[in-house]
């Protein structure tokens, strides 16, 4: 990962200095930022510090990488969990209804909606929402982020649109998983047996269909959450949402290696943790896995 970040063409020193500078200035900054050292040495310095939780200092801002990430973490967490909530509120009812009545009108409408959510570019959806709700109607602010501790009302107002956009996109993906796993469960032998035993529809659905369909749902929700936690660049930019996606993008553009490495490290940890949680949930849902 370290090598990959450094292999990307582009010189952070030149980017930091812009177009007007002297060679002496270039050399001095290169030395100050440690980029004149051999790559291997840079790696061990970084790795040694990273082990102690010190991710270095941003070339661009001169601030520590940990403080830059910490500053943006609340906004990213807020948006990610709000989006997942929106996504599940869309996906579970929509997926279930269409699975219960496959090829019906309801199913077709649900398919069109989820197809729409997947294929419509998120920046477009975002701008349309801004123009309508912030522009024409004037109900919501056009973007930005306010911490919940500061003003819960303003927090919610600014969260609605970005959460809706990312929620619709994620929800559309999840809807299809819910539908197909429900359909599979509905068609399975044990459901037929349960129905043959004379169990009520509700009981069959809750205990035999839903529970089996939950496994894939948990998996795909975990994947979506991990994706959202690593920052949704486009939506963050459209709604001026100060999340990790924007930080990572700025770091790539400025070839700000310390920040980029810190962000990638964090994303890797997020994936690991979410995978662990998903696995633990599996055992809770499906007793067979516990053995």
């Amino acid at each position, binding site marked *: 990962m370290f090598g990959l970040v450094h292999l990307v063409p582009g010189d952070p020193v030149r980017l930091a200095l812009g177009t007007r*500078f002297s060679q*002496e200035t270039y050399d001095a900054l290169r030395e100050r930022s440690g980029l004149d050292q051999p790559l291997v040495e840079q790696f061990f310095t970084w790795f040694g510090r990273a082990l102690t939780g010190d991710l270095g200092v941003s070339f661009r801002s001169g601030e520590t990488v940990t403080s830059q990430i910490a500053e943006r973490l609340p906004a990213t967490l807020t948006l990610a969990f709000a989006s997942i909530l*929106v996504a599940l509120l869309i996906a579970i009812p929509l997926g279930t209804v269409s699975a219960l009545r496959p090829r019906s009108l309801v199913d077709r409408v649900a398919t069109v*909606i989820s197809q729409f959510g997947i294929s419509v570019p998120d920046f477009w959806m975002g*701008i349309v929402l801004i123009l309508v709700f912030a522009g024409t109607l004037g109900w919501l602010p*056009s973007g930005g982020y306010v911490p919940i501790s500061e003003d819960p009302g303003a927090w919610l107002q600014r969260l609605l649109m970005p959460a809706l956009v990312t929620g619709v996109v994620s929800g559309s993906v999840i809807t299809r998983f819910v539908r197909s796993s429900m359909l599979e469960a509905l068609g399975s032998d044990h459901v037929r047996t349960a129905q043959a035993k004379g169990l009520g529809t509700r009981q069959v659905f809750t205990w035999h269909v839903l529970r089996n369909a939950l496994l894939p749902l948990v998996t795909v929700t975990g994947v979506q959450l991990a994706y959202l936690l690593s920052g949704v660049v486009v939506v963050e930019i459209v709604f001026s949402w100060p999340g990790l996606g924007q930080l990572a993008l700025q770091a790539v553009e400025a070839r700000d290696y310390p920040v980029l490495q810190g962000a990638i490290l964090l994303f890797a940890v997020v994936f690991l943790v979410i995978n662990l949680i998903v696995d633990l949930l599996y055992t809770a849902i499906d007793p067979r896995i516990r053995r």
Partner: protein
Amino acid sequence: MRPTRLLSLAAVGALGLTACSGGGESVDTGGGGGGGDDVLVAAVSAQPDQFDPHVTSAYPSFQVLENVYDTLVVPNPDDLTMEPSLATDWEISEDGLTWTFNLREGVTFHDGTEFDAADVVYSFNRIIDEELQNAYRFENVESVEAVDPQTVQITLSQPTPNLPALIGGFKGTAIIPEGAAEEYDLTTEAVGTGPFTLESSDASSTELAAYEDYWGGAPELGGVEFRYITEPAAALTALENGEVQWTDNVPPQQIEALQGNEDVQLESIPSVDYWYMSMNFARPPFDNPLVRQAIATAIDREAVTEAARFGAAQANQTAIPEGNFFASDYAPFEADAEAARQLLEESGVELPIDMGLMVTDEFPETVTAAQVIASQLEPIGIDVDVQTVDFATWLDRQAQGDFDAFMLGWLGNLDPFDYYHSQHITGGVNNYQGYSNPEVDQLLQAASSETDPDTRKDLYDQAIEMIVDDVSYLYLYNPNVVQAWAPGLSGYTIRPDRAINFEDVELP
């Protein structure tokens, strides 16, 4: 900029939701909690990278720093001639080598300390000794000395008529208190003498407060909040519904639509920037002057300008915009494909010529301009491959000379030295195209130390004619500065150098 169509079903659902929770309240414009009375909210397109004026080169940082720091001298907002700021006046010795600046009295820094000559010496020496971003501006400076607390003397190695522009053109040469770099973390804190103090900055906005003891009189505003809104549609919506009162995030294609909008006051004035194309003198066939002239003849600058800037620019065959004292009216090329074809024939170069034209999506207008140029060169037998790369790659390839041709601009030019010197003198730090003409070298060298303005203009006029004829740069246009603000906002002056100053602004 982007189309509007139907809403998704889910969006309609949210409509109901907000209608309940919103309950008819109006949107609060204060935003991040800091916005109280009399705070101007300005929508800027990017977050400042840091606040050390001597270290950063980022425009978003200088948008803020312009209001926080001062320089010895400062460009006048209208014609950009240098006028007093922290220095009240200055004298130049007979030989042009010693400049004596008399400093303003009664100026205090934001930490309460008194401003004097030691601060100037400290600030300039910090830039010079640590080889910081703007060290090149002090190339001719031998020493900076405090004669007494109110007098600073700068000694030069050669006459430097543009010294005021070098040390006061923008806030990159700001005066900080003696010892500030050791005492404060200047990347996040600011200790200036300007009209506003830096209060806080995070990933959403930067907040300034009025400095009551400002030497020019306390500003009318209570403070300024710079809010980062990257998406132009969002910035304009925020301006229209009153969340922000000022923005420079106005794409040129929006100008026409905004001119009739009652919620927005829009201004578009010529800037001191220029955009150009340059060819690699080390790579045949672009080493052939006839080939370069053929290309300069084939390109229709008006069409390029219209496509790239939607009319918010002036086509120009030299760098300095019309109206400037140093502007030249030299314009030898007339868009003519037939004449261009003849020049190519004369050159004896085999056709078709393949030309890679390197542009960067960091400046989208170069991509548009390059496409137009490609279509104009195709009929004369030049196949242009428009290579769009990110800015980091672009800068690398420029520095390595790995290009047939490229496009970019020079921004914030004040003196003809900024416009022409390092770009065209043999071996100049910005002469990436590898141009070398001994006569031009002589003229540029003489002009750089000529103290009589008329003689100086004459020298630059001669140099630019050769630069244009040799097509060292193929000049395209001077873009406009485009900004918009709330109707009724007063005291704001839109400036050709893009400096953003809110000192005298009053809210509607």
